[in-house]
C-alpha cells in the first residue's frame, strides 16, 4: 500500500509535538531520579552531632567536630558550603566556622571538619564562658546545588547550654594575718566544673594592688573531673605592707601548655 508523504507543515508540527513529548519524558525521568536520589542522600546523611570542647592556644576554647555527608544517589552535590556561628545569650557573635565550597560526587561520602575557636579573653563577651553557665545559640547554614539544577539552602538554629569549666568561680582573700615575721592571706578558691572535660592543670592566683603591684601569689594543682566542684583555701605569703584594699585577684589556668586568663575579682 502506498502512502503519500505528509506535507511539510504537517511534518514540522508533528516534529515539534514529538520533541515536546521527549522533553516531557526526560524532565519526568530527571525529576523522579532526583527525588529518589535526594531521599537516599537524606537517609544516608544522618547528622553526626558529635562535637567536643577543649581549651586551645591563645586564650581560646575550641568547639570541634565534623559533619559527614554521604551521597549514594545518582547526582552530585555541587558547591556545598557550610557555615556555623555561635552567639551568646545577648546575641553577641562568639565565633564562626566555614568550609567549602566542595563537590560531593555521586556515590561518595565527605566529612567536613568544624572547628570554632572562641576567644575567652577576660573582659570580652566570651570571657564569661569560663566562669558562667549560659545558653549558646548555634546557627548553621548549608548551601549547595543538587542534581545540577536545584539550588538548596538548609538553615537551622540550635540552642545548647554551655557548661563553664570554672562556673561560679570565686577567688577571695581572707583576713591577712602575720606571724613569725611574715604576712599571709588565706585565699579561698571555689568553682564548679560544668564543662564536659576535666580541669586538669594548675591555677595560679596573684593578689595585686590597685596599681597592679603583685603582693603575693600561689599555684594550686587542679584535677577536677567534669561535674565536680572544687573548694580549697590556701595561705598566700604577702609582701609586708602591700596594700591589697582596692586591688584585685588575678587567676590564670594552665593546662597542657595552654594558659587562660580568668576574669579578675576585685578585693573589697
Amino acid at each position, binding site marked *: 500500500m502506498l502512502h503519500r508523504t505528509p506535507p511539510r*507543515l*504537517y511534518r514540522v508540527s508533528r516534529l*515539534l509535538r514529538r520533541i515536546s513529548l521527549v*522533553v516531557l519524558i526526560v524532565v519526568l525521568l530527571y525529576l523522579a531520579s532526583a527525588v529518589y536520589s535526594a531521599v537516599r542522600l537524606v537517609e544516608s546523611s544522618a547528622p553526626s552531632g558529635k562535637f567536643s570542647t577543649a581549651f586551645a592556644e591563645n586564650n581560646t576554647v575550641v568547639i570541634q567536630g565534623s559533619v559527614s555527608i554521604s551521597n549514594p544517589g545518582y547526582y552530585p552535590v555541587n558547591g556545598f558550603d557550610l557555615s556555623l556561628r555561635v552567639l551568646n545569650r545577648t546575641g553577641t557573635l562568639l565565633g564562626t566556622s566555614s568550609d567549602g565550597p566542595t563537590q560531593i560526587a555521586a556515590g561518595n561520602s565527605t566529612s567536613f571538619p568544624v572547628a570554632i575557636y572562641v576567644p575567652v579573653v577576660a573582659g570580652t563577651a566570651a570571657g564569661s564562658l569560663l566562669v558562667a553557665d549560659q545558653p549558646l545559640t548555634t546557627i548553621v547554614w548549608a548551601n549547595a546545588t543538587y542534581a545540577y539544577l*536545584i539550588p*538548596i539552602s538548609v538553615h*537551622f538554629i540550635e540552642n545548647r547550654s554551655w557548661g563553664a569549666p570554672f562556673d561560679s568561680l570565686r577567688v577571695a582573700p581572707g583576713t591577712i594575718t602575720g606571724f613569725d615575721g611574715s604576712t599571709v592571706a588565706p585565699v579561698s578558691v571555689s568553682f564548679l566544673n560544668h564543662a564536659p572535660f576535666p580541669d586538669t592543670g594548675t591555677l595560679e592566683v596573684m593578689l595585686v594592688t590597685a596599681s597592679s603591684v603583685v603582693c603575693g601569689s600561689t599555684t594550686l594543682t587542679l584535677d577536677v573531673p567534669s561535674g565536680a566542684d572544687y573548694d580549697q583555701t590556701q595561705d598566700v605569703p604577702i609582701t609586708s605592707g602591700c596594700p591589697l584594699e582596692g586591688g584585685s585577684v588575678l587567676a590564670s589556668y594552665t593546662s597542657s601548655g595552654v594558659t587562660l586568663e580568668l576574669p579578675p575579682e576585685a578585693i573589697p
Partner: protein
Amino acid sequence: MSATPSGSPSPAAPTVPPPTPPSSLEYRIPSLGIRIASGTVRFVVLVIVLVVIPVAALDVLHSLSIALPISVETEAFYGVLISALLAARYVVRPTRAYGPVTIAAALASILFLITLLLEPPYTLAVPQTPVTITIAFDAILLLLLLIPVLTLAAGAVTTVEDVRSPGERLEFDFPG
C-alpha cells in the same frame, strides 16, 4: 535499453502508469459523539493527574503544617483549565479549531509555569525541628516551559496549515 541473448532488440515493454496517489478522502474521522466521549474520559484522567493528585499532596503538606509552594486554589484553577483545553483539543482535532485550541492550552500551561516562576523560592520549615530548607525550582520550571512553548509552536504551524490547505492533515491524523 535491454537486449535479448541473441542480440536482437526486445519488443517495447508496455508502459506502466505511475501509481495514483490515494484519494485525499482516505481517512476516517471518529464521530463527534465518540470524540466527545473520548474527550470526557481524557478530561477525567487529566483532572486526576493535574488536579486531584496535586491537591491531595498539597492537603497532606498542609495537614503536616508545612507551608505550601502554591495555593490549592491556583493549582485547582490551572489544573481544570489545562485539562479542559487538552480534552477540547482532542474533540476538535478534525476541525480548524485544533490549532487555536492547542495554542490556548499551551498558553494556559505557560501562564501556570510563569505563575510558579514568580513565586519566591520555596521555603520549607520542617515540623518539630529547627530546620528550614529553601529550594529554588527555577531551572526545572524553565525546562518545563520548553514543553508548552514547543506545543504552542506546533499549534501555530497547524493553524497556518489549516488556513492554507484545509483538511490536508486529516488523512495523516485519521488514517483510514
